[in-house]
């Protein structure tokens, strides 16, 4: 007679409960607001406040991030997931050290994308956030932008876990493409956040409170084009290339550890002599 403990189908490092899903949904919406407010905010009697909106977000975003992570980690996360999180975040940060975490050469995605892919959405989300947090602590890059970087990276990790379950060449190309897109998107949203601060309010590329979506998009595009796209494109290409080159061993290594630290190990306690008392609960 066999008592199998915790037999589960999926092998997600962090499983998402319905509550987590709901929270993630709201967080996603809030994230859109947190990054995209310059495009949506309307002008009016208190339009001058929109100049301070990013700072309001600086208070709110870490709060939301903390809640989501707490919710994800709460209960459903085991020692292996924690250890892997810590170690992978450390590796990501170490990769990021030479670049000093400055935009441009941003090797974070090498690790984040495959890890999210292999170890699942929830894990990808937390890993993305923690990686940037750790590297900020190591490089002294803690600042008002940090929560937003964490937030963006978290979603990159999350969606990496949502990619279709292709294998082989297709998988590599998919991941490479995704990494490139992710790198670009990351640069874009972070730039969107820096936009009102760096471009001020009285240049031809700066954010005009209530200037209307189209006009502001035009201005932002000009800003992005002239400020950071120069860094983002090489970064995207580099990320994609690296995944094409080192992706296979990377994935196999991650899969190997996911197997070794089998997240739902097929545990069984067998009782050799049936007349004896049944072992196990």
């Amino acid at each position: 007679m066999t008592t199998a403990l915790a037999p589960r189908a999926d092998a997600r490092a962090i499983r998402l409960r319905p509550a987590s899903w709901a929270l993630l949904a709201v967080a996603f919406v809030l994230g859109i607001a947190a990054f995209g407010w310059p495009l949506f905010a309307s002008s009016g009697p208190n339009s001058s406040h929109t100049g301070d909106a990013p700072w309001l977000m600086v208070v709110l975003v870490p709060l939301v991030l903390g809640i989501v992570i707490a919710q994800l980690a709460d209960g459903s996360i085991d020692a292996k997931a924690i250890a892997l999180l810590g170690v992978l975040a450390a590796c990501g940060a170490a990769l990021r050290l030479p670049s000093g975490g400055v935009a441009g050469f941003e090797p974070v995605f090498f690790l984040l994308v495959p890890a999210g892919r292999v170890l699942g959405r929830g894990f990808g989300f937390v890993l993305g956030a923690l990686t940037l947090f750790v590297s900020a602590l190591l490089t002294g890059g803690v600042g008002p932008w940090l929560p937003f970087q964490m937030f963006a990276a978290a979603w990159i990790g999350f969606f990496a876990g949502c990619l279709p379950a292709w294998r082989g060449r297709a998988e590599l190309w998919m991941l490479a493409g995704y990494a490139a897109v992710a790198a670009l998107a990351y640069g874009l949203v972070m730039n969107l956040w820096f936009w009102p601060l760096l471009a001020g309010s009285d240049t031809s590329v700066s954010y005009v409170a209530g200037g209307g979506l189209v006009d502001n998009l035009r201005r932002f595009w000009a800003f992005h084009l002239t400020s950071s796209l120069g860094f983002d494109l090489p970064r995207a290409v580099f990320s994609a290339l690296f995944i094409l080159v080192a992706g296979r061993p990377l994935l196999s290594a991650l899969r190997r550890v996911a197997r070794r630290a089998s997240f739902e190990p097929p545990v069984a306690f067998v009782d050799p002599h049936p007349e004896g008392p049944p072992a196990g609960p």
Partner: protein
Amino acid sequence: MGGRAVAVLGRVGASAALVVGGLGVALGLALVLALGVALGPGLAPAAAAPADACAAPMAETDVRVVVVVDPGDGGPMSTTCLVVPRGTTGMQVLARRAAMLGVAVPRYASSGLLCAIDGYPSSGCGERGGAGFRYWAYFSGTSGDWSYGKGNPFTRRVVDGDIEGWRFVEGAGNGTDPPPRLDPSPSLFPVQSTASSGPTSSAGSSAGSSTGSAAGAAPSGSPSGNVADGVVTGGDAPVSSDAAAGRPVVGDAVSIEVAGAPVVASTSSRPWVPVVIVVLVMVGLAGGAVVRSRTRA
């Protein structure tokens, strides 16, 4: 910083904070920050003084000002007379005017540049046009003629009988830019009498009635009929509302001035002195910091 003062402050701090409570502090802080950012610059005067204040007898602490706003070819000109507390700055006058006429408040760039009056122009700020900068030029008219940029509207304190002129121009951004198309003259002020009398009370009332509708699209809140004689005096609102609405405004304004008293002192005669003092303090602190870290290393 003397150890004694430090001790006192420390004890005060300890006891006071004990009352507040740690979580309270954190929460309160988050709130203060949220509020600070949400409502930070919200010190603009709120309520409107009634239009006929110019005609009515006024308090000792008040002055009468006429504001001429000429949006160039962006719409008709408007002339408004209003009563403000003594020491009000040009910008505050402009804000009070907007509040009184119920039109859009002036829009500023974070650089302090005035972008729009009465919501005109609707977007952009001091952009370059063909013939130069398209911006609101600030004039102050005394008797008969306008003079350009006689001081900074942020800091220039109006005195009784001042005429503030704003003209939206496309120009070099200096004295060569054209002034409002209306000569400043004391005649812009209505005759002050106890009786509520005005030449065009109907026009005034129409101005009053137009405030709500004119706030949005129409750049100026006054119908063209008044522009002919260029005089807008408010309609005959009941005098009682003066006491009702006016006082709090004055009180508010006064409180601002009290808080800002050092400001007045600093900007008046030799503005550099306080700056130099503070800079010296900063240098001292920085020096201390550097020395400290040297000795540690």
